[in-house]
């Protein structure tokens, strides 16, 4: 496992090295192309900035008002039915909207129960196999000005719920 982590330190530097060297030996103007790309990257970020503000503000308000806790309270019977601990539900809900908010919930769980506890394992695995559904859909579709998302949300939720159930079941199996 240690070797695995050691290897993961190599990923980013190696990819950058490979791209730059590959470009150099294919006689393309590596530096010029890089600058063009950075410039375009800036434009991408400026383009999605308003969406980020809108999204994070609505999540912030929803969370601070206590509405989020209320909704996870409503879901608690469903969670009990599926043997999901009460502390995990808000993580699942927030995870759909914002990665940073979900992370802060996870860190709270780490503080309270420890990362190696059953709940700690469960949320760690859950965070690793799910994505911020609404955030991703919003950022991607807003960048090409699409408002009718059709079957994207149902499909994404099927994948996310499958991953969540998998992480609960797998934690139960190994703990």
């Amino acid at each position: 496992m240690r070797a695995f982590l050691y290897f993961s330190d190599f990923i980013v530097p190696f990819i950058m090295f490979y791209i730059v060297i590959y470009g150099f030996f294919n006689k393309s103007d590596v530096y010029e192309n890089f600058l063009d790309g950075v410039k375009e990257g800036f434009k991408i970020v400026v383009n999605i900035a308003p969406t980020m503000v809108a999204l994070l503000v609505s999540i912030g308000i929803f969370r601070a008002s206590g509405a989020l806790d209320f909704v996870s309270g409503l879901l608690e019977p469903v969670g009990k039915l599926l043997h999901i601990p009460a502390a995990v539900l808000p993580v699942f809900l927030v995870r759909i909207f914002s990665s940073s908010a979900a992370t802060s919930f996870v860190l709270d769980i780490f503080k309270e129960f420890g990362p190696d506890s059953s709940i700690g394992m469960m949320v760690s695995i859950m965070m690793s196999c799910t994505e911020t559904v609404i955030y991703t859909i919003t950022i991607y579709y807003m960048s090409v000005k699409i408002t009718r998302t059709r079957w994207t949300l149902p499909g994404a939720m099927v994948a996310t719920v499958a991953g969540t159930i998998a992480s609960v079941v797998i934690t139960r199996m190994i703990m």
Partner: protein
Amino acid sequence: MLNILWVIMMAAGILFASFQGNMAAVTEAFIDSSTEAINLCIFMLGVIGVWNGMMEIAVKSGLMKRIAHVMYPFIHWLFPDIPPGHKANEYIAANMAANMLGLGWAATPAGLKAMQELKVLDKKTANKAPGRKKMIGSVPDSDAGGHASDMMCAFLVLNISSLQLIPINMIAYRSQYGSVEPASIVLPSIVSTAISTLAGIIFIKVIEVLRNRRRRRL
């Protein structure tokens, strides 16, 4: 959908706070989260800038074409409507590869570019076949007021089901909070991420089968 969702979250949050008597928290939340959004954007300017620069090098040197070529059978199986050699293949390949390696910040610019290419592609097919809308029945095309095409939906479902091999952030947090074995989540994570991606792919394929059936009937 986004419009309704946003209104619900804003209105429900504020109404709820007024019943609970913590309106001050709402004001604070709006200031905090708008600041957080801009801070995140400033961070993204740097990181996404660099990754997009790397990607531009890879595009111009032909490296992206090679990656897309290797992954083409898989991409073609998932997105049968994208013609071979189209640029969308390259960006989707780069997005998938970056996601698998856990490089979320590298995946974003590639994914957004893929989206743009898919939109161009959708417009082209819509123009070439003016009767398409009728043919496919209730499936609308993009110029009918910002509708997502089937390829876009499939791409995002796949992207969100995110096949990630090494959950590097979570491992870092776990060790920071005193885990005895922070990396013990790697194997269970790979299993559950495979399950979620499989669920996403099955969903995409079911939609495809239903669509083809409807097409045949018409």
